[in-house]
């Protein structure tokens, strides 16, 4: 299957969305995005970390070192209240954009 490059600026939203299900470490987030897009989205895992640290600096997520099931130290990220709000806003912005672009691309079907 062909993989699609991620649209500029959507990675933050995908990360926030993934963290909605609970705290997760960087690798877990990458795997979740890959799995829930059914391998269609090409997210270079390395690009997750600048995004994670930026979101953390903006106070949208929190970080905490915890042990994994295999007793390894890993940094877990979770949504803050501010992050939750941001996710809602981003989601509605995204939906409006998809709708608007759809109208432009397929005017006949409307």
């Amino acid at each position, binding site marked *: 299957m062909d993989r699609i490059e991620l649209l500029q600026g959507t990675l933050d939203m995908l990360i926030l969305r993934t963290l909605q299900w609970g705290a997760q470490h960087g690798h877990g987030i990458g795997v979740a995005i890959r799995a829930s897009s059914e391998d269609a989205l090409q997210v*270079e895992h390395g690009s997750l970390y600048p995004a994670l*640290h930026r979101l953390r600096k903006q106070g949208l997520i929190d970080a905490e070192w915890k042990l994994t099931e295999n007793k390894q130290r890993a*940094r877990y990220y979770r949504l803050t209240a501010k992050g939750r709000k941001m996710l809602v806003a981003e989601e509605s912005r995204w939906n409006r954009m998809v709708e608007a672009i759809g109208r432009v691309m397929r005017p006949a079907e409307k």
Partner: protein
Amino acid sequence: MRLWHKLVWRKLARHAREDSELDEELRFHLQEEAQLRMDRGQSPEDARRWARRDFGNVTRTKEVTREMWTFSALDRAAQDIRYAARMFRKNPAFTALALASLTLGIGATTAIFSVVNSVLLRPLPFRDPDQLVMVWERPPETGHNNVVQTQNFLDWRARNRSFENMAAVFQISTISKARARRYSCPGCASRRGSSIFSA
């Protein structure tokens, strides 16, 4: 000074901690991804290789991430200044040109402003400067002002009915106050003096 040192040290310590934590985080990521692939039946070497490939450039990731977290606006400004200094050193011809044009530009602006300031903006250093006029001699058909002959001036003064008084100026150079006083007209007194014309 001490406080400054303390702040710098604390910052460095924080940077170092962030760095080592990021290293650990990325190491964990690669290891976890390799494990996932091994669980799916890849050989350990393949798993490690593919994990790295999926990840992208590790060094670059570290650099960009570090920037996200540790660099404040001040750090970036300091970095820019250091970079500028390095570039100036590396390119002396350009530096000289830039400096020369800046120097000339600032110098010219300052010079012009000091003229405008003393000629147009600041009032003359005499009492009732708005009462002061300058009288010239203009020979017919020449169309330009001429130097007034001493005898002509004396005649003007003797027959004067329009002005309170008249005085001649030997040399005009009134940009700075000190020089204005040095060359001031005979009979003219500066504003600090008691009268404009002593005669």
